């Protein structure tokens, strides 16, 4: 890439959650729901001597992307690692449920989820988990009516229950610095031992859970550079897609067959994972 091009390139990752939303929606269409002035912050963090944030780290906004009505839910990675607490989780779940009501009423609103999150907020435990379950249910219901777009830009990644939310999306967009996995590297190392999974071995971690690998394994639909314009274009294309006839996660038989074919005595590596998952199990094919 030329220097001039690199200097022109605007980073998406460097924007905070609110700036990301502002960047994505058409000028003049943005309307934030439950903005920071509503002072909806976590009732639990203060009890544990942790400073709260007036939006609990989640920005919800209605607007349009290239004329298509959307609701964007952006998780702020800089606040508590993008963790899902009771309030932030309920904001996303509530926004999705409103979108579902709209869709059923014939006024489709496409959800766009910016998923920079380590998963449930440990300080809020079950309250966060309950919200995540509601998010899952809402995505499944919504995607019968509208495409649901997930974006993981990195470098926090998307883990825990929210990785399931990412998996449920009709289109998932990621950068090469993003990671997607149920358990984070430290958790795997703690459970399985450092010999099995060394959480400091960064090339190994990204080779298995990084954006490029997840794209090669058809768990991510579109791989973008950390380029704000390119990511917006990818999102705009995805929100305008028709609803997939068979979402990836409903192709249960094909996934089970794939899993059954696995030789679990073998240690997984990036190349093998790509071979095993070479086939895209996705109703609408690769939208990219």
């Amino acid at each position, binding site marked *: 890439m030329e*220097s001039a091009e*690199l200097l022109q390139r605007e980073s998406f990752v*460097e924007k905070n959650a609110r700036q990301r939303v502002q960047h994505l929606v058409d000028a003049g269409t943005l309307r934030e729901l439950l903005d920071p002035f509503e002072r909806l912050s976590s009732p639990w963090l203060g009890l544990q001597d942790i400073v709260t944030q007036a939006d609990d780290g989640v920005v919800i906004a209605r607007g349009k992307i290239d004329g298509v009505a959307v609701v964007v839910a952006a998780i702020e990675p800089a606040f508590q690692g993008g963790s899902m607490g009771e309030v932030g989780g309920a904001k996303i779940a509530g926004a999705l449920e409103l979108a579902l009501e709209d869709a059923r009423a014939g006024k489709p609103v496409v959800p766009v989820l910016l998923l920079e999150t380590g998963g449930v907020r440990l300080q809020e435990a079950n309250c966060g988990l309950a919200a995540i379950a509601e998010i899952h249910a809402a995505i499944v219901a919504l995607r019968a009516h509208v495409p649901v777009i997930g974006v993981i830009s990195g*470098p926090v990644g998307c883990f825990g229950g929210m990785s399931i939310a990412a998996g449920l999306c009709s289109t998932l967009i990621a950068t090469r*610095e993003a990671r997607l996995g149920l358990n984070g590297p430290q958790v795997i190392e703690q459970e399985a031992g450092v010999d099995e999974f060394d959480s400091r071995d*960064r090339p190994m971690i990204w080779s298995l859970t990084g954006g490029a690998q997840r794209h090669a394994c058809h768990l991510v639909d579109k791989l973008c550079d950390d380029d704000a314009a390119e990511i917006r274009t990818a999102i705009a294309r995805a929100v305008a897609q028709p609803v997939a006839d068979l979402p990836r996660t409903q192709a249960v038989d094909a996934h089970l067959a794939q899993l059954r074919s696995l030789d679990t005595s073998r240690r997984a590596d990036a190349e093998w994972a790509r071979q095993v998952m070479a086939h895209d199990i996705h109703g609408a094919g690769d939208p990219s």
Partner: protein
Amino acid sequence: MTQRQWTTRRDDKQDRMAQVAPWLDAKQLPADRITDALYALIAPGDRVIAEGNNQKQADFLSRALADLDPERVHDLHMIQPSVGRPEHLAVFEKGIARKLDFAFSGTQSHRIGALMMDGTIEAGAIHTYIELYARLFVDLIPKVVLTAAFKADRDGNLYTGPSTEDTPALVEAAAFSGGIVIAQANEIVDDVSQLDRVDIPGSWVDVVVQADKPFYIEPLFTRDPRHITDVQIFMAMMALKGIYAEHGVQSLNHGIGFNTAAIELLLPTYGEKLGLRGKIAKNWVLNPHPTLIPAIESGWVETVHCFGTELGMENYVAARPDVFFTGADGSLRSNRAFCQLAGHYAADMFIGSTLQMDGDGNSSTVTTSRVSGFGGAPNLGCDARGRRHATPAWANLAPSADPMARGRKLVVQMVETFQAGLKPTFVDSLDAVTVAEKAGLDLAPVMIYGDDTTHLLTEEGLAYLYKAESLEERRAMIAAVAGVTPLGMSADAATTKRLRAQDKIRTPEDLGVRRTEATRSQLAASSIADLVDWSGGLYEPPARFRSW
């Protein structure tokens, strides 16, 4: 009158070498003979250099040294530009060595501090690099040098490649004074024609030995742009406007902190916006910092001479020979002694950071738990009083137009008023003073003296300390930019107002730098991956810096 014997040093060397001669093939010693050879070649009380650089460690030899029996080899006086390996300190704990003269301790700074305080190490001095090299030719002439090379041939020719660093200075001191030079190499070849190039001629080297594994390299100068904060960017903007542009700084050295990494990454963006390309920051004395890549690629940097190398930068440097000093083989030639001299005498400016500064402007990175040494900072961060050439920036600091008036090197300390853990940077008395007392040092280990510091930059403002007309005024200027630290709270508002009116201090507003503009989106590269993109894929970051 008895005949004076004029060849005792040479004779002693010949006696020692005669003991190892039967084991040598040309100059190559079988690796399994290394312990025997060290017993033969090192005598109690010898001055010994175990080469430790930032990027090249004679670690096979220093491990062998640490395994010797202290009954047979003891009271060594170790001379080390850099103490970077655990075994460098094990020789003291085991009683093989007693006295230490060094310049930098980096990763061993906590342990070395403890050993100095409890008397296990008798500290000579904590030097600056060229000072230590200089003493190798005067009063610290070494008997044995343990050095390291990427490759050697059987005749002792060494290829030290991009990590040449200290080797020429250390080897020269022994090779021409009846000392013994022992070199470990990652690979030993049969013939000189198989070496990429010859950095040290074979006639300076007495013994070569193949190391059991390649020497250890630590990527010391890689700063991940992800960790640069908005405050650092804010201060970098103030530095570019209030110092680089103000004085027309063309030749310079940067410290290794995130502050200066931020400046490197702002040159192609904010610097470009200020129209400064081609006017500032053209000639560098600097290790190949990955964060300098965008400035090089966008045409800011004309030349870079390096103290040492940086892991992962090899291919990038080799592909930019107009900018970097490279050998006939194409790879970097670094040389710490020359680069330090360049930084001392030929650079307009040194800009770096510190952990503590006292009210007079003396600063140090030594704290009670950490004796890091300063490497080259005191050479770079002081006025070169012997300098006899003018450059625009140097001349700009002259107090008057009088033909006898001299300019000054810019020595800039760039610090946030508080360190991690809310410890104030500004203190009544440096920890270095206490450390000197406890460790029996003649001098307090000050990194940069207040009277050498020409500029102090904090997030509160920029103090042009060279404009101070008295020590008292210098103190007031430091207090004026010390924020809400106890020193800063003691600043007198009226005095601060006067200093501002006299243009001796400037606030961010005076400089026209807005806090709201200081965001990470100003950085030319915001991640290691971006740096790789900027390098066209030539930069190969070490695994631990990868996040893709």
